[in-house]
């Protein structure tokens, strides 16, 4: 009886050891394999965000360029994400930046803010702080008085929901 029990125990220990070995090998293989890149909230705009842009800008084309968007790659506090938007477009009486629009694809309010500017400012830039619900593309769209639209966007990773 005593033997039988220790046999059972031995068998159990052996099985456990094999199990652990399998796990270790499995983990090692998983580590060795190239980690699949977390696609995250990618460049693809969600339909709701596309709708916001369509409502505001119609079918007008938004082109890449002329906008620099400075944001942290990872936001330590998603209740206060610093955003700096700047453009090299002219700020002259007849050619100027009329507005800077700020859009966050995955926020409850996708259109976060609109900044209407005039040539009296001399330059076009905005520095502010925004809330983010989760990791998302942040987009800055610059609109000129002649109706051109330029943008820049950046993916920002967040930890907590900052939409308080």
């Amino acid at each position: 009886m005593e033997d039988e029990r220790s046999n059972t125990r031995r068998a159990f220990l052996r099985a456990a050891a094999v199990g652990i070995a399998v796990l270790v090998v499995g983990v090692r293989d998983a580590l060795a394999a190239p980690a699949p890149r977390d696609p995250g909230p990618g460049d693809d705009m969600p339909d709701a965000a596309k709708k916001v842009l369509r409502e505001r800008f119609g079918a007008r084309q938004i082109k890449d360029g002329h906008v620099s968007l400075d944001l942290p790659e990872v936001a330590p506090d998603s209740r206060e994400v610093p955003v700096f938007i700047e453009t090299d477009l002219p700020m002259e009486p007849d050619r100027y930046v009329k507005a800077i629009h700020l859009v966050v694809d995955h926020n409850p309010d996708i259109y976060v803010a609109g900044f209407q500017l005039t040539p009296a400012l001399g330059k076009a830039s905005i520095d502010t702080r925004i809330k983010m619900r989760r990791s998302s593309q942040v987009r800055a769209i610059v609109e000129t008085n002649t109706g051109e639209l330029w943008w820049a966007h950046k993916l920002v990773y967040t930890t907590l929901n900052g939409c308080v």
Partner: protein
Amino acid sequence: MTLGAAPAAGDPRILLPPGIRQDAVIYVRALVSHPMYTGMSRDEQGALIREYYIKSVEITYGGQRVARFEWTSGISRDPYVAFPLRATHEAPLHIAWTDTKGKVYTQTAAIAFGG
């Protein structure tokens, strides 16, 4: 996530750089205390806190409107904004923040050369 005691709204501030030269582009920093509630957070009793935020900011320089901002509750609590301004003449810079309850917070700073 619970929020601390409701901060008092108000205390509008304008910060100008020292030593402004004529025709230089300066950066104006503006700050106002405001909870900027989204309407999605709850108080300590678990009740939803109603949406309450600064919805517009109007900036005039020497009586002329130079910028206007439309905001949502996606702008952080105690909203901060910095923007450029070409200091063409000595005149007051006036900023008015309006919240969703219709309350207006105003502040004026003098654009003066030298100093």
